[in-house]
């Protein structure tokens, strides 16, 4: 399909493809096995100027937006969704600053993120507050010119590797969801420590850490967008970041299909390549159809988001994209393992890793159940609004 990419977007895809195919492919097994952080690939992405594709030029970026990020993450994820996360999670950490930072905050952090000098991260999750983010217990108390942070945040992608964190603390627990505020916290701030490192099923090339705050003092200027605006910041961030997860899922699905297809063309059974059997052909066709449908939805929604600007919300559509693409990724990777039979199940063949990596895309940045809730809730609201209009 020709998606009418601009010359710049094509250049992003080509540059990312080179890195994915020539650099990431040969090391993905190593990082999956060892759970080390893929710094050598971070360096490649830095040298190739890819960290800033979605950041405005005035802050050192290329001047693109969500679509540029989606194309980049998709291409990298075709080789390894786990390694691609160093880029996607940085964007998730950067978006709150990009969307709600004041000029000073943007100038302070975005150029380093755009150059890849410093990675970013984001987490709203707490041990007792997963899907119900409003149950968060971590607090920020204003004392003079500083906020004092206390509590625990968990499941932070890019944890410990990142140096800039967008995090959520309650500045007014009595107000519940409306008391949550967003802060930019730098690694190395006294009182900010890293707790347990999670051992994961997939995306093992990325570090997932628990963050511990013990009377961690940050300057008042680290508050993003004003007290009590945290939940809004998180939701608007997810509106633009969920297509990134969808792109990761789509890349994983595409990579898995390509590997399975290549294998089915050379694997011979009953005296012929297994791809000559209709059972295999139908699996392949189904994968290709679902992937292309997912891609069409993803690009369409992402372009609308980019065009819509800051005051328009696309919560329903971004939830659809994230949910749809990740479900496709899970189905495609499962079928890809099946197409390769016993070999597909083995560690020394990449298919089982694609399947493990795909699973997280149905879970993080809101489980797919939460996405369906959002979609339905928006539909009900829209219907109600239309109904009132008629009366």
């Amino acid at each position, binding site marked *: 399909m020709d998606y009418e990419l601009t*010359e*710049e977007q094509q*250049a*992003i895809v*080509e*540059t990312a493809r*080179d*890195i994915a195919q*020539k*650099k990431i492919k040969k090391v993905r097994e190593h990082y999956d096995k060892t759970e080390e952080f893929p710094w050598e690939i971070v360096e*490649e992405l830095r*040298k*190739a*100027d*890819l960290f800033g*594709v979605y950041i405005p030029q005035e802050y050192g970026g*290329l001047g693109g937006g969500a679509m540029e990020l989606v194309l980049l993450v998709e291409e990298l994820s075709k080789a390894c969704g786990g390694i691609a996360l160093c880029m996607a999670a940085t964007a998730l950490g950067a978006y709150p600053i990009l969307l709600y930072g004041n000029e000073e905050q943007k100038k302070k952090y975005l150029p380093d993120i755009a150059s890849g000098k410093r990675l970013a991260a984001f987490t709203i999750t707490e041990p007792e507050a997963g899907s119900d983010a409003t149950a968060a217990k971590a607090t920020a108390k204003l004392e003079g010119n500083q906020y004092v942070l206390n509590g625990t945040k968990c499941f932070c992608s890019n944890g410990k590797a990142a140096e800039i964190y967008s995090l959520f603390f309650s500045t007014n627990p009595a107000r519940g969801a409306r008391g949550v505020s967003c802060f930019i916290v730098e690694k190395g701030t006294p009182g900010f420590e890293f707790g347990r490192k999670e051992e994961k099923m997939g995306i093992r090339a990325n570090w997932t850490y628990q963050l511990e705050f013990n009377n961690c003092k940050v300057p008042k200027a680290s508050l993003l967008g004003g007290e009590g605006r945290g939940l809004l910041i998180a939701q608007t961030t997810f509106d633009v970041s969920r297509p990134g997860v969808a792109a990761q899922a789509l890349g994983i699905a595409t990579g898995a299909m390509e590997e399975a297809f290549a294998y089915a063309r050379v694997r011979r059974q009953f005296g012929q390549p297994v791809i000559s059997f209709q059972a295999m052909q139908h699996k392949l066709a189904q994968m290709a159809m679902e992937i292309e449908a997912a891609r069409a939805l993803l690009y369409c929604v992402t372009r609308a988001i980019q065009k819509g600007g800051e005051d328009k919300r696309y919560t329903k559509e971004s939830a659809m994209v994230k949910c749809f693409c990740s479900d496709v990724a899970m189905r495609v990777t499962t079928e890809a393992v099946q197409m390769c039979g016993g070999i597909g199940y083995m560690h020394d063949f990449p298919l089982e890793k694609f399947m493990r990596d795909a699973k997280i895309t149905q879970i993080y940045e809101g489980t797919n159940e939460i996405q369906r809730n959002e979609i339905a809730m928006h539909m009900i609201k829209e219907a109600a609004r239309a109904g009132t209009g008629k009366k």
Partner: protein
Amino acid sequence: MHIIVCIKQTPATANIQIDSKTGTLKREGMAAAINPFDEYGIEEAVRIKEKLPGSTISVVTMGPPQAEDALRDAISRGCDDAFHVTDRAFAGADTWATSYTLQMAIKKIAEVKNRPFDLIICGKQTNDGDTGHVGPGIAAWLNIPNAAYVGHVEEVKEGSITVRRMMEDGYDVLELPTPALISVIKEINEPRLPSLKGKLAAKKAVIPKWDAAAINADKAKIGLSGSPTIVAKSFNPPPRKGGERVEGATPEEKAKRLVARLKELKVI
């Protein structure tokens, strides 16, 4: 420092086929890319430029219209300006005519950029012609010092470059006064992948095309008619036969049998 890198677009494979009738390389339908040895040349030029701010890199190729792709690729890898020497009259050039043509282009580049060249970098050879003549040939035409088989650049400064020339029994350390030419081997560096900014610059670059008249080339010294080389015959070397295995239960037994076999063959 003004560095000029000479590149060639060659088939993107190590498995070059020769047309047994004409004795020339089969090019049709082959994917083309920058000659791999030239990629090391480009990378070394970019590394020198990074060390010496204010440097500029020009890249030049002699070749058919599609060779422009190789020049754009070179820009995406960090070269500043590209020059395409292209004319039907250049076709069929041997290494003598090629090096003559390239040195005329090099003089022209220095003229249009209004900056004399300090260093010319070539790959040690191409992966299709395999001669290794063109680099030293250019140096001879320009009457400048050259070092072939360069595996390491030790120092570059105003007025000189110090390099390691790899030899069969080690290496020579040579200091060459600039302007000079070096041709490089693959051990010299690991070429980087094109950057995004490089790719965008490559897409936008305006690449001048120069014919024989534009570089003031003497018609008698270019192309097939200007080439003194006569190719008597060319062919693919016969594939190597498999070796012989010396079997034995213990290393001692294997060694004994090996010695016996070598004596039988009158090797020792």
